[in-house]
């Protein structure tokens, strides 16, 4: 045939110049031309494909690096226990990020949150302590040990506090040991002189629970005093006055017609360094010398000691009331 199998270039399609021959040769030439065109197209496609593949592979490598960095960031986020979400909270997160279907997510979370609100009300009532904020920071989170820094603020009746401490939990077998370190207590102790010695002691011994037990007891005793003072001021307004307000330690008793003679009921609530809360009630008298000279009876000068005996026999409220009755020169017994 004379055709050279290995060198089809003889057809010269590359330059696009085709010698159009006549007759059957024309047919053969265009068929060959067609085939060459497919060759070229497939070659181009292969070139495009390998170009695409290279581009895609580079893109994928870049994306994998991005995803790895984001996953590391997410792992760091999960170390923050406050926001390490599980269960319904995780579902809610997925929903917000557009992953899951709307459904009942908000309703379920709303119901769960409501239950937590109820629980918080219950704990607040039962514990006698109102917390308004608790923030935590995870300082260390290895397999066996967790160290968190807490900042808790709230109030116990009228007493406002803020405590900061480190809580460390170490897993020892089945149980985990919890320890408090670095306790710092902030309270407005301007009118709590007898509390500050206790506070410094409790910070030293990092006895967080003792602080709260004592705070609550101290608050209860102060509330007892306030209730009693307020009750008597309402019942005997002409005789009883509270110069320092109802939360102060002093109640004055004074008959309006005997302006110079005043009796003071001094009711202090003392807190020992150990955390023991002791109410102490004393009766103090301010009676002018002239009056004492006119009435040198034991009843007037020995009032303070007499009151202590009354206290022992009748208890605080009844003892105070009998003194009030005496001052008001009332005929009732």
């Amino acid at each position, binding site marked *: *045939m004379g*055709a050279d*199998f290995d060198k089809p270039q003889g057809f010269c399609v590359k330059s696009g110049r085709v010698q159009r021959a006549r007759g*059957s040769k024309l047919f*053969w030439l265009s*068929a*060959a031309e067609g085939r060459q065109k497919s*060759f070229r197209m497939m070659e181009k*496609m*292969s070139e495009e*494909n390998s170009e695409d*593949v290279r581009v895609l592979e580079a*893109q*994928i490598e870049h*994306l994998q690096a*991005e*995803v790895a960095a*984001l*996953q590391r*960031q*997410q792992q760091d*986020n999960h170390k923050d226990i*406050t*926001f390490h979400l599980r269960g319904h*909270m995780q579902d*809610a*997160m997925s*929903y*917000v*990020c557009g*992953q899951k279907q709307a459904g009942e997510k908000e309703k379920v979370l*709303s119901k769960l*949150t409501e239950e*937590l609100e109820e*629980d*918080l009300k*219950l*704990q607040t009532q*039962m*514990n006698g302590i109102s*917390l*308004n*904020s*608790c*923030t935590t920071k995870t300082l260390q989170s290895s397999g066996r040990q967790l160290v968190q820094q*807490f900042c*808790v*603020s709230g109030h116990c009746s009228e007493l406002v506090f803020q405590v900061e401490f480190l809580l460390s939990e170490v897993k020892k077998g089945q149980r985990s*040991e*919890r*320890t408090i*370190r670095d306790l710092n207590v902030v309270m407005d102790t301007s009118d709590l002189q007898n509390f500050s010695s206790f506070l410094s002691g409790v910070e030293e*011994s990092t*006895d*967080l*629970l003792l602080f709260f*037990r004592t705070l609550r007891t101290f608050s*209860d005793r102060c509330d007892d005093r306030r209730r009693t003072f307020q009750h008597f001021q309402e019942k005997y307004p002409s005789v009883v006055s509270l110069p320092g307000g109802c939360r102060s330690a002093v109640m004055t008793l004074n008959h309006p017609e005997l302006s110079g003679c005043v009796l003071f009921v001094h009711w202090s609530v003392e807190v020992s360094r*150990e955390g*023991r809360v002791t109410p102490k009630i004393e009766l103090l008298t301010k009676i002018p010398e002239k009056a004492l000279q006119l009435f040198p009876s034991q009843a007037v000068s020995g009032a303070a000691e007499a009151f202590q005996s009354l206290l022992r026999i009748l208890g605080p409220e009844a003892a105070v009331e009998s003194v009030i009755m005496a001052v008001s020169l009332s005929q009732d017994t």
Partner: protein
Amino acid sequence: MAGASTKGVLSHLSLLEVQARSRKTPPQQPSRVKELKAKAEALMTQRDQLKAEIETHKSLQKLRASMDKQCTHEEEEEEEMAIDSENSQLLRLMARHTQLKDLLHAHDIIGGYNVIKTRKGKGLCVSLTTAYNGVYLENYNLEMDLKPTLRISRDNIPPFIPLKSLAEQSNMQTDIRTLLDPLSQHLNAFAARKQQLKLVKELHKSVQVMESNALCSLLVLMFTVPREKTAVLCSLEYTDHTRCLPTRVHFECEDKGLPDSPEWKKNSSLLMETPVHKALITMKKMGDIV
């Protein structure tokens, strides 16, 4: 005739051409591109998902911080943080959820009673936490019936703690804390004395524990005085069970004059005012005991 054979030649040629090309470069099938495109898209979705989660996490943190500020500064009118999201309601709910969980956790840590209502409101479960000097110790539990009246149905309080009499003396029907607070005081004092005894045994091997009781209300220790090597028997009585300091300290020694010496009178006060394991450290430092 020549056409037919030339046709055969041409098709043979194209076949050879393709074979030659396929030997030079690997087969670039379009499906490989599709495969890679799919992989890239999956990675893009994953990346976008992660980005969204991290952004939401940031929003939650900011929202929670603003809510915490609002709660601590009740007088100041803190502006509610504006959230740039169509999910603002849900995000607020999520932030509040984390806040509540933290507050409840705080109630537990500060020694709260962890009250749980049980049996559809007919019962109550109370937990009493004990701790000493920052170390959390035993937990004790009470199960109570609410109807017809509040009463204790089950407990794991040790028998030497006067639970029954505390309940009788309390006003628990109107205020359950009049039972729980004294009970917690007793339990914590007991836990403290027990812990002090444990620390004496651990830290002061030279001091012998001669006697102790279950309630840890009595402790008899044997000291050795350096130089003379005399033995001093020290009795600590803790008659007030709500305290973890002794109410009476007594020394017994062959040397009858020792308890009245100024050093040992000081030690007597020290033991009355300082927890025993700490007092012993001071006494060792002063050279009074070995």
